[in-house]
């Protein structure tokens, strides 16, 4: 246990924030002690991000006060939050890709020499800072092409450079590999030991148990409970979050049918040099969930994009029910009977400005039920969208609302719902439960299993090993663009998979 004093550094009192008729924060109060790690947990749309945005000055509360060191403060914008020693690593990184690490970190507080930006001094400062907090980074590399874990490190250093005493992390681990998660949690502990006070918003209760001192549970815009981590359990926390006990997904035994999706010798190289996909051969049978396990960045994104026609592969064969769709346009691939849940809900899955109803048919608007002779059938679309929203409990005011106004997890649920409900014989699901709460994860898992039991072929790509192990009838391990092992359900342990994923030879 850290030696945390009980002096309160931050208090938020009776915060109320409404979006139209929706109450995102309903009289929420929070306090944070110096040097502690507080976890804020709750279902999708519970209002966690909203509360953090209020703290960081990105949203203005309708009511409520904020006290820093027992002194009332006003935070109208991010600059004021920063000046008050409050820093935030946001759910979506705020970085400038073409700029270097240093340029990104010193942004807004650049060292000057006369009229000019003193880049040399800046680089030096950042080197020192990265050494001091043991967060290794090369100050002069560009952000472009950096893995997510490093980008996040840039964000953390940025907050430290701004001299923040309070650091807010909003779902920091959602996009990290297990190794990166491990490093991040250690970093947070180190920072807390160095006297920083930390708030972490997350859906992963095992992380909460590992890193936090206290947890605050939110539900439907209200805070419902505080717990000391030492006196609670995952079960209790999840019960507090969703208000019911979760039952394990049941996976009925069925015997798979014929191979609906068969990929042979798929190859892809970039710039004619390193192979990204190296003679990948996999197949998925009807009535089967096939998992692809791998540390992200080992080719799984490219594999999916090649299958779906978003990227052109060099050679190989992709058979859908015996028909070759290799390097066919996306539309043709979709028509052949494939649906996909993309790994990034905002880049691939939706358009921020589109309404929920529009997002609900994106990619499927040509289906006869949605449009005839180029005219949209608004009524069916609305009905369909309404049904999805209800069935998947997407928390929204109305289906006319913009997709960008959904909370992260709710946007994900909407896209998952859309792709699952297309009743295609093949579903490719990439990180289908990224950023959604445990209740919703359960629901999505149930849907995937149901789809498979109805005879569809499901290809599941996930960096959550537990998810792969739980759902997959068969597992392929991918490492550096090669298949590094294949297992039937129950024939492999998490440890073995973990080893194969980092390149150890077949056991």
């Amino acid at each position: 246990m850290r030696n945390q004093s009980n002096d309160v550094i931050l208090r938020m009192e009776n915060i109320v924030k409404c979006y139209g008729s929706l109450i995102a924060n309903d009289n929420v109060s929070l306090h944070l002690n110096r040097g502690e790690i507080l976890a804020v947990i709750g279902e999708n749309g519970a209002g966690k991000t909203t509360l953090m945005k209020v703290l960081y000055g990105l949203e203005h509360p309708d009511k409520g006060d904020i006290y820093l060191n027992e002194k009332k403060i006003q935070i109208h914008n991010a600059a004021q939050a920063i000046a008050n020693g409050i820093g935030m690593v946001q759910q979506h990184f705020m970085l400038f890709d073409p700029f270097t690490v240093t340029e990104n970190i010193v942004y807004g507080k650049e060292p000057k020499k006369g009229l000019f930006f003193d880049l040399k001094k800046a680089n030096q400062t950042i080197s020192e800072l990265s050494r001091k907090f043991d967060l290794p980074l090369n100050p002069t590399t560009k952000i472009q092409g950096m893995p997510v874990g490093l980008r996040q490190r840039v964000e953390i250093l940025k907050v430290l450079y701004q001299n923040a005493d309070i650091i807010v992390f909003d779902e920091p681990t959602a996009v990290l590999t297990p190794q990166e998660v491990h490093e991040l949690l250690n970093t947070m502990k180190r920072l807390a030991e160095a006297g920083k006070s930390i708030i972490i918003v997350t859906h992963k209760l095992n992380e909460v148990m590992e890193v936090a001192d206290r947890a605050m549970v939110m539900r439907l815009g209200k805070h419902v409970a505080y717990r000391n981590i030492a006196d609670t359990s995952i079960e209790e926390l999840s019960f507090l979050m969703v208000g019911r006990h979760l039952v394990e997904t049941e996976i009925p035994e069925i015997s798979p049918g014929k191979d609906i999706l068969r990929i042979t010798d798929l190859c892809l190289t970039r710039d004619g040099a390193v192979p990204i996909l190296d003679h990948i051969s996999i197949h998925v049978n009807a009535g089967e969930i096939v998992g692809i396990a791998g540390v992200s960045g080992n080719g799984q994104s490219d594999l999916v994009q090649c299958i779906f026609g978003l990227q052109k592969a060099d050679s190989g064969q992709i058979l859908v029910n015996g028909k070759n769709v290799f390097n066919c346009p996306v539309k043709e691939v979709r028509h052949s009977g494939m649906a996909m849940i993309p790994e990034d809900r905002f880049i691939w899955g939706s358009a921020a400005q589109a309404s929920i109803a529009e997002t609900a048919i994106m990619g499927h608007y040509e289906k006869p039920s949605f449009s005839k002779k180029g005219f949209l059938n608004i009524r069916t679309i609305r009905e369909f969208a309404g049904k999805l929203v209800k069935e998947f409990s997407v928390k929204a005011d109305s289906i006319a609302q913009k997709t960008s106004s959904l909370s992260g997890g709710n946007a994900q649920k909407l896209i998952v719902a859309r792709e699952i409900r297309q009743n295609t014989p093949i579903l490719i699901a990439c990180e289908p439960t990224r950023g959604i709460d445990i209740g919703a994860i359960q629901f999505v898992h149930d849907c995937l299993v149901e789809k498979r039991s109805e005879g569809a072929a499901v290809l599941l790509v996930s960096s959550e090993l537990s998810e792969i192990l739980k759902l997959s009838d068969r597992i392929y391990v991918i490492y550096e663009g090669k298949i590094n092992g294949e297992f039937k359900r129950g024939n492999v342990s998490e440890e073995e998979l973990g080893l194969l994923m980092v390149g150890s030879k077949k056991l």
Partner: protein
Amino acid sequence: MNINANYLAVVFNSTIRMMTPILFVGLGSALCNRVFIFNIGLEGTMLTGAFAAIVANYYTGSIFISLLAAMISAMIVSWIAGIFMVKFKGAMLVVGVSINMLISGLTTFLMQIIFGVKGAYVSTDLVPLHKIDVSMLKQWPILQTMFGSLTYLDFFAFILAIILYFFLFRTVTGFRMRSVGINKVAAQSLGINADRLQIGTVAFSGLLSGIGGCLLTMGGVTMFAQNITAGRGYIAMAAATLGAAHPLGVVAGSAFFGFAQSMANMLQNSSISSQLTMALPYLATILALAIYNFAQIRRHAL
């Protein structure tokens, strides 16, 4: 051989004179591109500057006040356009086109009221921009031809490109400007007033286009004609695009169009139909942009 060299010197000289008005506006356009503003209104603000310069000159007879009037009037018009684009989130194309049409009509109308003429106003009473004295180059007639009858503003255009280069890439303000163009949301979340930076940039680009306009009417022949800019604002935008919104790149882009313009002028004395020669700079614009975009697409496809 000597005739040839002399001919080249004349082309060089005329290229410079044709390119510098474009260069001023092009630099403004490049700055706008850097903050992610597509400022099509530069055609109109350039015309504003051109007209204000002639009016101020007419009343005061001072070229200095004339230049100042061009800068300030163009800046104000541009500043208003910037507010509409950024604060009120008006579609940039619509705001820009409105400005251009408004100014085009307004200057034609005011020309009739103030000078009482239609079409064009020429007067010997007007005081042109000072020319740089090249008599010290007497021994080298070629050099004298190359740099003869250039104004101080022509010279300053190149200096300005270098200054802006340092400004954009070495100063904190320049750094922040570029950042707003890359990711405005991020800039705002880091406490930067991105709106103000964008509006400021649009206003400043207007000021530059005003200088360009002044150079157009007060540089060679001192005259104002209806829509005298004749699309130079658009050409300058193309120059900025070709120069990848880099100040030194804009110099190259403007030189290309300056050269095309000067070729067109020269060919007017030949047997080729004048309709065709006059179209040359515009054809060059389209061709250059097409090739540039094609190359970009090729590069991204790789």
